């Protein structure tokens, strides 16, 4: 007998004595918890996102669409970045004001090659105000997971208010499970040494989130 059959057989025997239960799943679980916490206007929701991002040590900037290229150029310049990774579908105008070398993500680029690039600029799929989270789903303006992982500096552009939701339940509704998803809440961190929080272990040590309006 295969391991599969043996395990399924054991599960069925273990449950043989359990009371019958044919409650449909929709009724088996009470969903009386809140869809979101508190009532806020759209502007307040965006403010809460900014507040929670900062609380977990992301750097937050705000601008309108017209100001975006200059802001990105400024942020790359501030870090003395020599190269910036560009996802295939990123709006080219976002990088129109910077002279920093743009590196396209090639399918065969090795992790070592990515490691030599200082920064990466992406969009996002959704941002969650209550938790200060941005979610990437591998769309063309975000690229493969590795390009937002290996460089040490990640600039993530969030279109507000369209891409902002209040809560985790609202975010899950918007996401497509089949896509590879990365939820990011602040830069990488560890509290493994005497529970002192240290920012920046393996993921990008600097996370800058640009809340861009009018996009």
């Amino acid at each position, binding site marked *: 007998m*295969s*391991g*599969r059959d*043996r*395990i*399924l*057989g*054991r*599960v*069925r*025997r*273990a*449950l043989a004595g*359990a009371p019958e*239960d044919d409650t449909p*799943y929709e009724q*088996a*679980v*009470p*969903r*009386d*918890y*809140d869809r979101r*916490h508190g009532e806020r206007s759209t502007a307040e929701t965006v403010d809460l996102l900014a507040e929670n991002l900062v609380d*977990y040590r992301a750097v937050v900037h705000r601008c309108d669409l017209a100001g975006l290229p200059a802001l990105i150029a400024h942020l790359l310049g501030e870090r003395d970045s020599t190269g910036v990774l560009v996802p295939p579908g990123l709006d080219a105008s976002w990088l129109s004001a910077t002279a920093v070398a743009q590196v396209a993500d090639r399918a065969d680029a090795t*992790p*070592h090659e990515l490691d030599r690039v200082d920064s990466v600029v992406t969009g996002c799929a959704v941002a969650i105000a209550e*938790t*200060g*989270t941005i979610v990437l789903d*591998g769309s063309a303006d975000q690229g*493969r*997971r590795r390009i937002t*992982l*290996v460089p040490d500096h990640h600039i993530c552009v969030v279109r507000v208010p369209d891409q902002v939701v209040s809560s*985790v*339940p609202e975010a*899950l509704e918007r996401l497509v*499970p*089949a896509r*590879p*998803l*990365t*939820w*990011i*809440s602040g*830069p*990488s*961190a*560890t*509290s*493994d*040494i*005497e*529970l*002192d929080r240290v920012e*920046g*272990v*393996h*993921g990008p040590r600097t996370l800058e989130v640009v809340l861009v309006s009018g996009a």
Partner: protein
Amino acid sequence: MSTTHLGMPGLPPPAHPAFPPFPEAAHDAVRDERLRGNLRHATTTIRAKRAHAVAELEDWQRLREAGKRIKDHTLRHLDRYLVQLEEAVTAAGGTVHWALDAAEANRIVTDLVKATGEHEVVKVKSMATQEIGLNEALEAEGIRAYETDLAELIVQLGKDRPSHILVPAIHRNRGEIRDIFRTQMAAWGRPAPDDLSDTPAELAEAARLHLREKFLRAKVGVSGANFMVAETGTLVVVESEGNGRMCLTLPDTLISVVGIEKILPTWRDLEVFLQTLPRSSTAERMNPYTSMWTGTTDGDGPRDFHLVLLDNGRTDTLADDVGRQALRCIRCSACLNVCPVYERAGGHAYGSVYPGPIGAILSPQLRGTHSDIDASLPYASSLCGACYDVCPVAIDIPEVLVHLRERVVQGGEVTREGNKVVLKPAKGHGGERAAMRAARWAFSHPAVLRGGQRLASRTRRLHPRTLPGPGRAWTGTRDLPEAPAEPFRDWWQRTHGGEEDDK
């Protein structure tokens, strides 16, 4: 299905014969001032933070109830959801393997790694792979497994054992960590800088550089998972450092070893656990990184994905109608951080990868109560109930402890490796003596009892008039007072007036 009568000595050897029973290990830990200091600092800090994070959500109790019900429903129909998960993962390009026990799981993973021709793997912290001793099994086949979680790295370099689910090196302070890095890193790869100081930032930087070369060249990653969604075939890993993302994204081959109880029926169910898990474990609104993947994705991440579904005692646990609630556990470690016994005894005393209150009910069920350590674990508690109060899936740990005590003492029918067996009472065997010493240890440390926070109304139900078994032996023929109408710790304080207080 056969029913066999087994006496304690006739049972198979314990999984970890080297572990002393709980009270002896706990005794050593209590004398270790440094360990106690580290533990007290850590658990006190995280307790306060967790309470704050939980208080932010006014629907906490409703989320907790939903989490409990989702898990109970899943366990009740586990066969159906396992099959559904397998179909979804396979449809998304993954390969599903089934492992009845640790040996089978280790063989499957070893064969998969060998098939890639590689001799090293990078690992993201996973309780399941620790439980089965995967690193040792790989080592025996000439494959090196690199732990990449900072705390796991500290444990691995220090040739040590984890002592906390979430912060496995909680028993090490910064000075010790620096010494371990200085003396051991070179043997595993990039050495630590000579002038390494003991500031957490510098230590983390040393770990970053040491591990980075491994991530960038890794061809095989090994992980566990916090959740698996049956409906979509999605796996979820929740982490902080980014080592998880590295292991899940950069290698060509990903092998995930996951206990069969980690299933959630639907995508939507994540909305409950992604709110309760981070707040319960690291006391954050959200942990820094959560990765979700469904099979394989062209051009992004591993080309080959293998899911190894692990039983290893879980179906035996499922067969116990009181004990099966332990399978709801999402490994948040909140119960460790509030446990007065854990705080004083430390994680190593539990002799298992699962320490603290959850370990005290999970290990004896996964492994059976035939070893001294596993027979004594259900006694490593004052039944104060603080663990139940914080548990995000409402596991009634005291209830299961009492149930397992009865099992140790009175014997009875249990399921072992899929077969019903009847345990004889532990009387006269090593298990009984070990259990008795554990009970005495807990009772003779008033500070342990005092640490409990439970109100009388709940403790009363759980304190039978005579303590079952070893407790009974210890209390002689005297009955305990009629259900004390006051918290147990207060009752102890009053009747034992602070004598024997071990500070």
